[in-house]
């Protein structure tokens, strides 16, 4: 190989290649960060349930259906029987309600698509947060305006820690009736979430 060519490869082509690869990587990394964290994930659900209609227009409290959210680590997905509290009477002629009634009568559980998820090794506790007055919308966005639920916030450990360190700045919405609770910084030790 000619000296000139070797020189050219070493001094020009390789640096350019490295630069291009790095730039592409960095740009893709940051551009796709939100998507990789699941932001914008909006799976179609087996029944086209509208949070906008129920929580927004009809102003049903989140806790009517997600009834365990104050009592337990998990905010439960309501069982079909909860829907049927109203829908034995209400709008029984609509196709989606007919679908629901069928599920209910046959005793088949509805397989809702999961929208939000923290990894199994992190033990997030809904009740602890909700009882401290942290409104659902701080993490889940304004579900009351969503026709189909989507993830709007980052659910990474970074997001958890941002809030735990600076709750005063990061927590925008306080639940109604819990305004006078003092917002403390959250625990930041590992064992608070990992066990």
């Amino acid at each position, binding site marked *: 190989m000619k000296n000139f060519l070797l020189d050219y490869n070493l001094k020009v082509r390789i640096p350019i290649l490295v630069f291009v690869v790095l730039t592409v990587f960095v740009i893709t990394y940051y551009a796709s960060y939100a*998507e990789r964290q*699941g932001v914008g*994930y909006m*799976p179609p659900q087996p029944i086209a349930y509208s949070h906008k209609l129920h929580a927004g227009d009809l102003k049903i409290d989140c806790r009517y259906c997600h009834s*365990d959210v*104050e*009592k*337990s*680590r*998990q905010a*439960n*997905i*309501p*069982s*079909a*029987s*909860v829907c049927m509290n109203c829908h034995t009477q209400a709008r029984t002629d609509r196709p989606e309600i007919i679908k629901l009634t069928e*599920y*209910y009568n046959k*005793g*088949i*559980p*509805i*397989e*809702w*698509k*999961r*929208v*939000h*998820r923290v*990894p*199994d*090794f992190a*033990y997030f*506790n809904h*009740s*602890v947060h909700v*009882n*401290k007055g942290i409104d659902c919308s701080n993490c889940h966005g304004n579900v009351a305006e969503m026709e189909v639920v989507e993830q709007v916030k980052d659910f990474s450990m970074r997001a958890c820690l941002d809030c735990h360190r600076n709750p005063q700045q990061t927590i925008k919405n306080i639940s109604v009736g819990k305004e006078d*609770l003092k917002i403390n910084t959250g*625990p930041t*030790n*590992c*064992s*608070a979430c*990992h*066990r």
Partner: protein
Amino acid sequence: MLLREIQDRTIMDNKEIKTKENIIQSTSVDFKDNSPEAEKDINYWQSFRDLYNDPDFINEKRKEFAPGALDRPDENSISKLSRRKFLALLSASAAVAASGCSNFREKGEFIPYNKKPEEVTLGNPTYYASTCTGCSSACGILIKTMEGRPIKVDGNPDHPVSKGKVCAIAQASVMSLYDPERLKNPVERVNKTSPKEVSWAEIDDKIIGEIKKAASGNKEIAIVTHTINSPSRKKLLDEFKTTYPSAKVYSYELFNESARNSAWEKCYGSKVYPLIKWNDAKVILSLESDFLGTEGNKVETSRLYTENRDAFNGKEFNRLYAVEGNTTVTGMNADYRMILRTDAIEEFVMCLLNEFVSKQRVSAFASDSGISSKLSGNNLGAFAEKNNLSKQVIDHLVSDLKKNMGSSYISAGSMLPESTHIAVNLLNEVLGNTKLYVTNVSNVELIPLSTKAELESLVSGIRSGNTSVVIHFDSNPVYHLPTDSGYAEAIKNVPLVITITESENESAEVSNYVLPVNSMFESWGDFQTRNNFASLQQPVIAPLYNTRQKEEILLTWIKGTKDAFNNDIYHQYVMDNWKGTVLSKFTSEADFKKAWYGGLNDGVVSVSPVSAAGETSAVTFKPESFTTNNSKLTQSSDYVVILTKSSSLGDGRYANNGWLQELPKSVSRVAWDNFAAISVQTSKALDLKQDDIIKITTSGGSLDIPVFVQPGIAEGVVAVELGYGRSVCGIVGKDVGFNGNKLMTQNPALSSWMYNDAKISKTGDAYEIVTTQDHYAFDEPLYKDIQYRREIIQEGTYLGWKENSNFLEDRHTKYSEEEKAKLKVGSINKQYEHTGLKWGMVIDLNKCIGCNECVAACSVENNIPVVGKEQTKNHRAMQWMRIDRYYSGTPEAPKASFQPMLCQHCDFAPCENVCPVAATTHSADGINGMAYNRCVGTRYCSNNCPYKVRRFNYFNFRDHFREGIQQEESFSLMANPEVTVRSRGVMEKCTFCLQRIMDERQMAIQENRLPKGSNVKTACQEACNTNAISFGDQNDKSDNFYKLNNSSLGYSVLEEIKVKPNITYLAKLRNVYEMEKEEGHH
């Protein structure tokens, strides 16, 4: 690392402190060092290798990991493509292929209930009261269920006997429920061989026909079962007998109280041995009686016993004397333990009787010439001399018994023959100890166990062809009954054998039909073990497989048609039975329902005591029972073989439960096997060492079994645990250990569990026994000097402590002022001020009896895998908690100290400093946490842990044990969802049950208050039968925990290295007159 160096330097600087003169000068302890090796303080040792300073052992202790732990896996065994592995690979590749095409954002589904049960709050546990059927004690349990899955069993606090505690068998019972090897469908074994699955309807049809034929032909239908402690089951069996008049019920137990009860009947005329007020006994003499370990209802007994072992509850300590040949848990907890061949115990009792009755003329029996003439010739002094018993201890015993007449109790072991029990009854009578017999409450025997004659007639009936149907009603007589009973042979000729069982066993192997039954979590039932209450059992999960409850099966047969079955049939039956009996006072249906649901909620219903037939309230001793008592027990020149109960496996029913198999035995610390325990003297005489196989021959049969040289066992005594050596069992328990039942005989000269005509001989073969006794031994080469007085175990005498409650503090007088100042050198770390909540634990060594229940509970609570014998041998057992057993004294007659050892959650945790990825860190409330997802498995932390309590996942043990049986789907239901299931390559350790602390935090926030220490109970604390473990907030001065934590008996292990552990041990106080002089070892 710097911290370590500075600490080390502090210690090195103090090197000169150690001189023989000032080694230990505590107030009540006086030891002399007369051998060069006896430099260690008080001479504690864990195994012979430790005692004799085996260079290998010393080397092992100094290494980072025990040699076995670093062994490479056997690659041949790994590469073998088992069926499970093949399927796993197949599905994994399919999963990979599928994931390539699927949406990476896909997060799976939520599957909520269709109709949610009212009592369930997702994520919060629901508790149900029920009754344990692990043995015939029928303890009350609370079953913790998560989303309908039972995941943990603890005691029911409302239960009058067990009072919120259960044994290890109940703790581990969830593993039996989810055992993937449970029988899933009824099986017909054509010609008792080729098994094929059939439907219940088909089986019911065939069997009902056969039974009807047998009944009409007047051929016997034999039902063989265990103790019947359930009134409804008794009624059911009675109905069966009415419907099919040729039916007969036989019940047996491998371990029973037949000798004790028949002696009682001879002495007092009533059937049932009374309950004992153990908590009122000031002096207890245990004669080969393991009442803290395996005899009677040990959950209750150990609790009552340790009521008088609490230094801070205002009660005086009791004093426990043990005279035994074996090394039982009870003996190892005794204040004075005398070693005596088991077959000399009766003579010892006679000597004691002679001493009190004839010499000291205690009680009215002194003037009964019939008694005193029988006693003559038994001289206590001569006996003591002959058998090498310490005269001093004998004197103490005699004077203590005399001083505490009416408040002492002599307990004879169940294995001792009737004649000994009669003598002991008289001795208790002489000393006025009948005051300790409970009079208002007694045990209830619904149907007495079959006598020897009845069992013989069962076999002869089979042989003569008179019996045409045998039903094994959840029993396993082929394994349990002695070989010479001929049962196993005879059963082959019975035309119809039906085995009703949860999982495969030896009796199922010889049956025509094997019918799978529900586990105790899937069953209805009622129990009555005492005359003042009855308890209920309710199902907490629908049957996992195509099984039926055993009572349902019989009930269907009673009704005579397969259509009679429905899965509510026995529930109705029990309810109807209660309507007429326990709850008969509730006449209206509504009242009854209320009472019934109340009973189910509480688990127990009290009933007004009805004294059993033939029982009078005031029992009087019949002296003729003693005078006509023909003692058969005299010391022989052969070996004595004693067959004992395994504290974890019971009678072998739980052989397939890995958690129980892996639980080390309290004294020997052997896991996964049984063995013949022999004494040091015997081992020398026969030139035997651990693992050598010997042949034991008794009048019942012979058995080849490896030996374990057990310090403290009497010369000439060979102890074998039963319940092992199951030949037909699941993959976990098959051929684990050796079947000691082979040594039993139908007609024993003494008792079924004791043979003094045994011969033993060396076979020349060997078998490896795994003991964990010297696993994780403490040794830090850099603390070489300090280790001589490292004071891991600290103890004193009760009397000494009463004189000077600060004796532990004062022991520091061994340090000069200058040295003390040096020891005060602080840490280079800044002390973090734990101002708020700070968790801590106190373990009271006075109450800890070393029973292992905490270890079992911890394994269940924290999803700890079973690793198997091989890996246990390699020091890789995963139990987060271990009970260290230290011997002190000579190998022939050691004393024992038990010490639960778990993560100490040190304030200056050495593990945290060395973790390169900060996977183990401290929290503000004093917990040393582990973030598994962060751990990369360097094992530096484990290397740096002075307490050796960190456990590393060398494998994915769930996959690595017995063809990956723990990976089966059913076992995934067993996991506690609040604790991560760890996999290969991460370090783990005790978390102080962080999940329970977090529950309390959740409750506190819900109720808008601060978390309270006393609201958290760790799994080990909850399980501890004797309440030796307390847990709480170290800064909460209002709590009782604070007092314990700062009490005069408190010390922390390896205080000198200044890592500031958060576990405080309360020093053991032996209730002896003076510490025995250390004899120094050879």
